[in-house]
Structure formats: C-alpha cells, structure tokens
C-alpha cells in the first residue's frame, strides 16, 4: 500500500486490504469445513448406517413431481390434483418442485430427485425439446419417468415410461368442428368467418396442437384466418394482443383463444372497445372459443360470453396414481394415455359434432355443472 503517501487516506485504502487478508483465512477455513461436510456425506453414504437417513426416509412410495409453474387456473388445479392423489394417506411421499416456467429449473429439479433417490419422477415439461440428457440420467439411475400434460420431444422413447395428458389436436378439432356445424345451422357462409387466434406460449404442446387444428380447419372450411399471435396463456398479454387485433381489423367475428385466461383478456379488450361478445355473429357480436373449462371459464360460458369452451382435463392425479400402482404390480402400461374431455356451450343449436367416425356430444352448461367444478 505504498502507493498512497498520506497516512490519513491510508486507513481508507487499507480497509479493503484487511478484508481480503482475513477473507483468505476464512476461505481456507471454509474450504476445509466444506470438504469435511461433503466428505462426511459420502463416507456416511458408503457406511449406510446413518440415523438421519432413517428419520427422513418414509416407508411409502416416493414421488418427485416437477411442475412447470403456476401460470393459470388450469395449472393450479393440475397441481392440486397431483397433491391429492399422492398424499401421505394414500401411502406416498411427494416432493413437489415448481419450475417457474424455466426449463433449467426443471432440469435441476430432476437432477435433485435423482440424488434424493425417489421411486418415480413425474414431469410436466415447460416445453418439448431439450430433455434427452437429463432423462437419460434418470434412466441410468433406474428411476421411471412419467410425462404429464405436455409432451417431450425425444428420439429415444424408452427415456420415459408413459405420457398422460390431453389430445390437444383433438381439442382444437372439436372446437373447429363445432364452429363449422354452428355456421351451417345458422346459414353463415364460411367466407364471412373472420378469425383471429390468440395462441398459447409458443412451443407448448397445447399451443402446437390447437393452432394446427385451427389452421387445418380454416383451410378446409374456407374461413378467413386473419392473424395469429401469442398471448402467452395470460389474461394481461391476451388483452394487449386482442386490443391490437381490434385496432388492425374491423371485421373480426370469431376469436380463438387457446386457454380460458386468454379468453378473459380478449373479452376485456373487446368490451372496452365497445363491442359485444356472444355467439350471434350475424348481428355484430364477437364469438369467443376457448379451452380448459376452468370454473371461471365455465361461468363465462354460462353467461354466454364464451360461445364454446373445450375441456382440457387437469385432474390427472388419479390417472397417474393408478398407473404407478400398475407398475408397482408389475403390469404393463400404455405409452400414451389420453384423458376424456367434453365440450361445453350454452347454445342449443348444435347437439352433436363428429370428427372422423366418432361423435362427440355438446354438453349444455348448467349451474349444476358449474357448481360441481372443483377448479
């Protein structure tokens, strides 16, 4: 510290020096401690005789569930369903991890589950790609992985045991087929259908499936698909997107929202622009098609704001639980398991739609159905 000749300033400068000197000492101390703790850990693991571990290891089946986040009502219902299915009363211990919409958090969570030696890993992936490495790690550790809700895009299908979720393309196809049947019943020519699509988070399975179905149907039926933009599954973003659509196009009469929260945002934007939402598009109303059928979504369906709400069943817990029981009993399970889903509307003019050779009845929404919804 000879650079500074004035002793008065010497103390200011030396301050940092002091910390550094002491911190070196601390660092070496800490390094020793850390090595100690860590080494103790590995030694103990080998001895396999630590009291601690017996205290924290439960008798039941240990499940690690990496949920992608808590962005919507649907997601919350999905989480609750899992927690209820894998409760302690049912003989499970559930490690729950919220990925907060980040793939790296989810990868970290899976690595953590592997280290915790859970019996099963459940993964609700935030997006489809980029899972090979970590799923391989789980496989190498002998932990079966069940994919929930969205799909993973991996070349080697043996990386996961099974996938449970919704058929998003079928959901989209149902909504489009309903619109097609509705316009035929009401004698609306297809070229007068002007649709905007508020998409989900780009790259999510639900977005890919639902958007694809709409594009196919628009081409097939000759609808005018004006624009597509992501509302990121949130009310706020969808409101913004719908606002800009309304400023840009004055002939919109159908809004295809890829989840309920986006529908709420779209409704807000339409109403604040002085337009009316409803299924009477011949008289200037704007029709909302939505997905998910959360309680709030069905409430808007009952009061006619959402013309059609296509169910996307979040209550996957019991389904996954029964699959795990099957695996435990040594039974084989299917690679892809779809859950059953309905479509809800207040409009009675369409009673049944058919896709391929399968007919799907339209459920007319009532207060009773609404009251029985738990999410």
């Amino acid at each position, binding site marked *: *510290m000879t*650079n*500074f000749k004035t*002793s*008065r*300033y*010497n*103390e*200011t*400068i*030396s*301050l*940092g*020096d*002091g*910390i*550094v000197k*002491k*911190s*070196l000492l*601390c660092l070496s101390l*800490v390094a020793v401690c*850390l090595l100690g*703790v*860590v*080494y103790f*850990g*590995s030694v*103990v*693991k080998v001895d396999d005789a*630590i009291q*601690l*571990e017996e205290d*924290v*290891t439960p008798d039941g089946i240990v499940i690690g569930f990496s*949920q992608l986040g*808590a962005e919507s009502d649907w997601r919350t219902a999905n989480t609750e369903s899992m927690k209820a299915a894998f409760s302690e009363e049912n003989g499970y211990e559930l*490690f*729950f*991890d*919220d990925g*907060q919409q980040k*793939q790296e*958090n989810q990868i*970290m969570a899976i*690595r*953590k589950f*592997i*280290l*915790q*030696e859970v019996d099963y890993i459940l993964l609700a992936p935030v997006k489809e*790609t*980029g899972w090979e*490495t970590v799923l391989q790690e789980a496989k*190498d*550790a*002998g*932990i079966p992985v069940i994919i929930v809700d969205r799909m993973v895009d991996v070349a080697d299908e043996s990386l996961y045991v099974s996938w449970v979720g919704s058929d998003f393309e079928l959901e989209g196809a149902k909504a489009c087929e309903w619109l097609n049947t509705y316009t035929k019943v009401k004698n609306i020519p297809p070229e007068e259908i002007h649709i905007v699509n508020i998409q989900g988070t*780009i*790259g999510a399975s639900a977005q890919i499936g639902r958007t694809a179905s709409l594009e196919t149907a628009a081409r097939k039926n000759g609808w005018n698909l004006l624009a597509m933009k992501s509302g990121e599954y949130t009310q706020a973003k969808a409101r913004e997107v719908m606002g800009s659509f309304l400023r840009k196009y004055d002939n919109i009469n159908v809004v295809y929202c890829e989840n309920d929260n986006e529908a709420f945002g779209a409704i807000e934007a339409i109403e604040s622009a002085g337009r009316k939402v409803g299924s009477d598009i011949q008289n200037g109303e704007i029709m909302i098609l939505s997905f998910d059928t959360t309680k709030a979504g069905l409430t808007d369906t009952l009061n006619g704001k959402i013309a059609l709400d296509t169910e996307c069943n979040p209550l996957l817990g019991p389904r996954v639980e029964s699959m795990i029981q099957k695996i435990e009993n040594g039974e084989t399970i299917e690679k892809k398991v779809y859950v059953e889903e309905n479509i809800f509307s207040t409009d009675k003019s369409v009673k049944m739609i058919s896709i391929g050779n399968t007919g799907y009845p339209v459920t007319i929404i009532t207060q009773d159905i609404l009251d029985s919804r738990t999410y």
Partner: protein
Amino acid sequence: MSSSNQSKRKKITDSNLLLTITIVVFFLMYIGAILFQGKGFLKPQTFFNILNANAALLILSCGMSLVMITGGIDISVGGVTALVSMCCAVYLDFHDGNVLGAVAIALAIGLAFGIVQGFLVAYLDIQPFIVSLAGMFFARGMTTIVNTNPFNVANPEFVAMKDTRIVVPGMGSINKLGKYVNAYVEIGVIVAILVVIVLFIILKWTRLGRYFYAVGGNSQSALMLGINVKRTKFLSHLICSFLAGIGGFVYFMHVGSGAASHAMGAEMNAIASSIIGGTMLTGGVGNIIGTFFGVLSLSTIQNIVSSAGLDQAWWTGITIAAMLCLFLVVQSVVMTRKNKK
C-alpha cells in the same frame, strides 16, 4: 499513527463481521438442509449442481460487486445475458457458426455494453442506475428483435461442449441402482472459479484494485490522491459488462437455448448476492469471497425452498427478502459505528 492503527483494526473487524455472517449463514443453511431434507443434500453432487446452475450468476455477481465497490450499479447484466444467449444461439443454429465465433460474439457484446455504459457514467457523469436501466431495456428489446421465439440449439459442436462434464475425483456417490456415479461440474463452473480468482487478485494485489475501493469509498479523496476517478469508474463498468458477456455465454452453455425470457431478474439476484456477501451499496466496501458465498447462500435457499415442497414461488422471495433485510440492518449498524469514530 496509533489511533489510525486502532481505527483501522476496528474497521477490519466490522467488514469482516459481514463476511463472517455470510459464511456462517451459508453453512447453517446447508447443515439445516442436510438435517431436514436428508439424502439429497448429503451427496456432494447436490452442491455441485447448485454450482452448475449458478455459475453464470456467480460471474455476473462478481462484476456487480466490482461496480458496487466503485460506488455504482449495473442493472443491465441480466439483459446482456439474455442478449448474448440469443445472439449465440442464432449464430450457432441459423448461420452454422462455430463455438469460438460464439464466444467472440459474447465477449464483443459485453465489451460494447461496457464501453457505452462506462463512457456515459464516467465521462458524462450520468447516474449509473439510469444508464444501466436504459441498457437493460435496450438489451431485452434487442433480444426479441434478434429472434422472438425460444429455441434449443442443436449445433453438435456446441451440444458436445454443453454436455462436457469435469469429474470431481472422490466426490461421487452411489445411486439407486447401487452404481457409483462420479461427481461432476460443468465447464461454466471452472470459468466462474477463474473469474473469482482473477478478480480477487485484481482487487487485492493490483494498484487498480485499490483504486476501485478508493473511488467507491470517497471519490473526492481519491481525486485528491491523484487517482483518475473517471477512468476507474469507466473501467469498473467495462469489466462488469465484459463479465456479463462471459456470464452470458456460461448461462447459454448451461441452458443450451436462446429465449427472450432468459436470465429474467438475474441482475437483481446478482445485487442481492453481492449484498448478502457483504458488499455495500454505498461503495468502498466488499470483497469477492463474500460475493461467492452470497451466490451460494442465495441459490441454496432457492434449492431448499423448492425441495421443501412449498409450491408457491413467493416463499423463495420471502426468504431472500428476510436475508437481505438482515444483512442491510447489519450493514447499517456497521456504518453507524464507523461514522461515530
């Protein structure tokens, strides 16, 4: 001279107190995690996973500490990280780039931000907060302009580097199948440790390092001592942004994708880590070892909270808030004691 010596000793104790608290808190937390969450935390790999996931944050925090020691702040580092990830991802995947080129892009972006922000702060005397706020918005905006949709990089050369694992000898553990698995760290961790060491050396043994403390402690006095205050401030911002470029690449190497939402809030985590590590927002006090433990503490909390099955993300926030509060109170007590002298 004796009184000066005494007061010097006193200050060392105070500053050291902050560092000691950080380290003690970290160890208490880790031991607590082992006791209450068992198994997972007992394995060394859990610790290395924390390092792997936070190597980038560590680099960003080192830069942040340096700027804070010099009396400034830089909230653009998260944005720069996202921009670097996106540019490298686009270069590697859409333009068939090679990894070296991507590294060059990352460093160039960091340097560019450093030069512009450093110039505005040091020579035009604009508030660092405002300058880096603008930098943050610019970086986030540019990220979306470069490419809107998130995507994973498939470039084989890059993927090989991303999946490279450096085995840590003697730290492995036995997995569920009874197989011995080596413990590993990613390349990013090595880079981060190197950054910590280099910055530690700069701050301790070089004249420039002492200048940083001097300018941050009292820029008037530093000026009277003949230190080039403007140049020192400029350099602190330059180094910080340059580190953000490196950190951005390390982050990119960890996640392997480009997305506009990458490293959201990373600048705030970096500031929080620095503060937990004993760096003062007022400048002149702080050290890199503290920052290192600040980052570890912060990420261990996140790990504990997410393992504890508290499904609400705000639990992490609340715990970090409580820790920050504790450290700020301790710091203000230290400051008051110092001022009484």
